[in-house]
């Protein structure tokens, strides 16, 4: 089969292109550094992107706009609980994941009980989470315990620890989607929820689990990001709203649901970091950077979709 017909290949090609162009400036110097940075920062986008991908797979109209607020709230509460005390990393992780579960549960309840369209439900809920984060800590930036900060900025075998976390999560999601019964059910639900229900699939369980997963992924990303960058800030999640959607669609998952693509999420996460680095390195101003980023995103989508049609 023609490799170009795989929808995820395009995000990887684009990432590689941006990588090469950046290094073109330095005639190859700094490749390691750049790759390392891309893996570190791509990991956060990949983690939230994997969650968003699961939600988008649920079908049209499903999307989680509360990711940034969930990240912020989870990180804020976790860091406040740990309060820079050594040895509390796991307590903090538990708090963060707990916040994720609670937020996911709340989102799902709004969707299920009040039957709000997910896009509106998660948007409204995110405002409440943001308020909770402000109220709980008034924007103070508490440092993570040193061991946790060391872990988050550390590396094993030349790969950043946060990237290991992202890769591990990607592997798990891949197995779930491609090999498990649960994944099949999710994909079926995304194609036609009604038909899936009539085929005996427990669609509400699938939807609930998906909305819980995305929030838990977001809270994990928030916890890691706060540990990595030296504390939680109220605006730390902002850029992950569009980012999480962008990496899913650039990665080749179908926005119409029922079809998802794990390797593409990582490719797109790397790309989103590398393209900004490339444009910054070439000295592009904010305007040029923005226009080019948008154009490249559209080009990737066109390339991926026209290839798919021909294949």
């Amino acid at each position, binding site marked *: 089969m023609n490799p170009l017909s795989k929808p995820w290949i395009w995000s990887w090609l684009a990432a590689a292109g941006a990588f090469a162009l950046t290094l073109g400036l330095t005639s190859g110097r700094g490749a390691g550094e750049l790759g390392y940075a891309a893996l570190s920062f791509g990991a956060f986008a990949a983690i939230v992107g994997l969650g968003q991908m699961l939600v988008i797979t649920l079908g049209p109209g499903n999307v989680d706009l509360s990711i940034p607020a969930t990240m912020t709230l989870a990180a804020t509460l976790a860091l406040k609980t740990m309060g820079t005390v050594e040895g509390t990393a796991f307590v903090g992780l538990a708090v963060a994941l707990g916040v994720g579960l609670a937020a996911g549960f709340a989102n799902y309840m709004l969707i299920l009980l009040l039957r709000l369209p997910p896009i509106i439900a998660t*948007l409204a809920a995110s405002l409440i989470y943001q308020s909770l984060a402000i109220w709980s800590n008034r924007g103070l930036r508490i440092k993570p315990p040193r061991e946790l900060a060391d872990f988050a900025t550390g590396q094993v075998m030349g790969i950043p620890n946060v990237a290991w976390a992202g890769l591990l999560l990607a592997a798990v999601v891949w197995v779930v989607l491609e090999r498990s019964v649960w994944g099949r059910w999710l994909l079926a639900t995304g194609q036609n929820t009604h038909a899936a229900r009539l085929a005996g699939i427990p669609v509400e369980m699938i939807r609930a689990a998906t909305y819980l997963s995305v929030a838990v992924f977001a809270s994990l990303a928030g916890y890691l990001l706060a540990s990595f960058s030296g504390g939680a800030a109220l605006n730390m999640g902002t850029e992950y709203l569009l980012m999480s959607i962008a990496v899913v*669609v650039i990665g080749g998952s179908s926005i119409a649901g029922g079809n998802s693509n794990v390797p593409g999420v990582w490719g797109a996460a790397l790309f989103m970091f590398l393209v900004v680095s490339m444009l910054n390195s070439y000295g592009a101003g904010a305007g040029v950077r923005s226009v080019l980023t948008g154009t490249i995103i559209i080009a990737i989508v066109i390339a991926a979709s026209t290839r798919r049609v021909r294949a």
Partner: protein
Amino acid sequence: MSFLARHRIILPVVSLAVLLAATFYMQPRAMSYFGLNLLFNLAVPIALATIAQMMIIMVNDIDLSLGAFVSLVACVTATFLNDTPMLGLLILLALILSYALLGALIHALDLPAIVVTLGMSFVWGGLALFILPSPGGASPDWLRTLMTVKPPIVPMAVVASVIIAAVTHLLIIRSGIGTVLRGVGGNATSVARAGWPVIRLKAFAYGLAGLFGVLAGMTLVGLTTSADANIALRYTLLSIAGVILGGGEFIGGKVSPTGAVIGALTLTLAASFLSFMRLSPDWQIGAQGAILILVLTARLIFSRRGEA
């Protein structure tokens, strides 16, 4: 089918009325010509943006670039349209045209609109930064005059909302071409089979969205008197919420222009209502979310009744 389920428009109307009553109760001063104008004049560009979003949702797509687009239009209006009106007008026409082309491209290559518009939001935002790297520009005088005109009896904001609703209702619900456009959202295959060039219809719907986006940006500048590259970013989500609040649905071509305008007014009013409640700043943001949930929950009561 119940009366309420058939007349979806009642829900947005009732939500708005209840909210308005509550606002008047909290702040009796709002119950005046002057007060209504203050409450609603910033809703005019939002209503136009909501209509623009509705045009896209009508053909089963969604526009994530609308906020950035309106910001760009605002920048063009506050600079080119003010300094060199002819050039400004040309640029605005070109922007409408590019929206139409976008619609054609999305249809021809069968691209997911959400992704293309996500990409376009970066493009529009970048162009806006070119034009206005820092806030500035000035509203053309005629536009400022138009937006601050004081008609007798009813304030400008209310008059404008009614006009927007009436015109778009005629265009989308009553007219033949509007019916066909809604048909594209309902079942594009059957419209194509009947011999309509769907690609042109989609381009037309997008073009209409571009037109209303341009109007939104212009009226915004008329009110704010100047622009910046980020001025309307939140219109993207606001407009989507407005369409849904107004009884529209994401797929199937079910939209209501009147509902969309009312939805936009409701959202604007909700924010004012909250500030009259004098919450602590910590909770002001969350309360916006809570009120959004509350207003939409009313839908539930209606749809439950509708099923019974």
